[in-house]
């Protein structure tokens, strides 16, 4: 038995509860990243589509915001469904980040400190796949700012509760914010470009019949999301919506 060369995070001898034991596996972590990724991708798509309402005027988007708070109508107390969705999303986001962090540590350990003398010339890995951790961090930082800017309002001096239209315009009229928004969305684009393709591999949904279409899907989805999201700050900056 080799004792050298083992990954140094030796697994604890005591058996953990099933769910933790399950999560300890790297393959499971990747699987969970893919599933939480699907939830987050769904959210991103819905968010972008919903925001398209700004192009139909303030009443439309403000009514959309109100409809979200009133989700479930008379069946559930007001804002409860929205909160359930928010909590669900936060959990998915947190798990996605934790798994990524833990896998990154594992991988750095597995690779060790010695690097090849000739820098690896990557043949299959692309820019998007190699920059996942950086694009991911940019997205996290952006999400925090974005919430402070447009949900909590503390990063937006002209914030008006319940008036998303005015808040969005007030936010994107500031040039640095518009630029940060554009940069963050390009990072998001890179992240989901690899993510959408890669998640099929992680959950094992891989079939020669449609494998080629995974690339098309990744590019198509990313293009729609990024173009849609970038249109908002650009439209505000050029006065198309005001």
């Amino acid at each position, binding site marked *: 038995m080799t004792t050298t060369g083992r990954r140094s995070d030796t697994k604890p001898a005591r058996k953990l509860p099933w769910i933790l034991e399950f999560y300890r596996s790297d*393959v499971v972590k990747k699987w969970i990243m893919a599933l939480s990724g699907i939830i987050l991708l769904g959210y991103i798509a819905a968010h972008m589509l919903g925001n398209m309402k700004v192009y139909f005027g303030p009443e439309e988007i403000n009514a959309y915001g109100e409809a979200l708070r009133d989700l479930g109508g008379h069946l559930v107390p007001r804002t409860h469904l929205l909160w359930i969705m928010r909590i669900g999303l936060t959990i998915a986001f947190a798990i996605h980040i934790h798994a990524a962090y833990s896998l990154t540590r594992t991988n750095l350990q597995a690779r060790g400190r010695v690097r090849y003398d000739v820098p*690896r010339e990557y043949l299959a890995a692309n820019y998007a796949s190699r920059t996942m951790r950086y694009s991911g961090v940019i997205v996290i930082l952006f999400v925090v700012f974005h919430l402070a800017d447009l949900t909590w309002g503390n990063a937006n001096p002209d914030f008006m509760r319940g008036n998303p239209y005015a808040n969005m315009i007030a936010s994107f009229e500031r040039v640095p914010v518009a630029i940060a928004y554009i940069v963050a969305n390009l990072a998001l684009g890179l992240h989901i470009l690899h993510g959408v393709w890669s998640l099929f591999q992680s959950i094992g949904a891989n079939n020669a019949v449609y494998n080629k279409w995974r690339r098309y899907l990744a590019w198509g989805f990313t293009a729609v999301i990024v173009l849609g999201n970038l249109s908002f700050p650009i439209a505000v900056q050029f006065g198309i919506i005001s």
Partner: protein
Amino acid sequence: MDLTLKVWRQDGPGEPGEFKEYEAKGISADSSFLEMLDFVNERLVEAGEEPIEFDHDCREGICGTCGVMINGHPHGDQKGTATCQLHMRKFNDGDRIVIEPWRATGMPVIRDLIVDRSPLDRIIEAGGYVSVNTGGTPDANLIPIPQMAAESSMDAASCIGCAACIAACPNSAGQLFTSAKLAHLNLLPQGQPERYERTVAMVDKMEEFFGSCTNHAECEEACPKSISIDNIAFMNRDYIAGKFKDRRKAGQS
């Protein structure tokens, strides 16, 4: 042809090690990469120096012992070739060739270009076998197997266990090796009884030594047998299924 070699020299496990440069003059363009190293070693021995230690056995691309990093490419940059099948005519006169051992925490260097690939054996031991009935020889072709399934199983079975996938992976992950070994059994009827136990056991063993897959597909590019990462997806699915499978009901087909 005349070449300059920059080779990793290391006296033993855990020793510091360093690169050394060697002039390799008068190398025949017809020789293989390993023959070129033999030639250099002969001169080193004549000069009273320690020869460069490298792993090799069959020299015909089937045993998987000969992998080294050549100019940053596992087994050199010719696709689908093991180091022993690489020929010097692929290089140019005056070239400078950097030769390094595989690098991964799970496969420490033993000496010079030789690494400890025994973790791969540990993974096989964990489940890379099928149990068969002894007794009379069964008739050939007694078990019908769809042609396509037999082919993909054979493709996976062409893995020679050289560890180039691990060497090429930015995460030093053992996924391509393990998934190939799993697929070649799990795709066939004979592999079904132990399928999920095997998958869970081999993946768990793999994770003791190697990193995790981030779907870069560098391994597929480096593999001397061009094994597909589709096997990794198959392994991921079987692993999750294996985690949930009720083993008491595994007898059904």
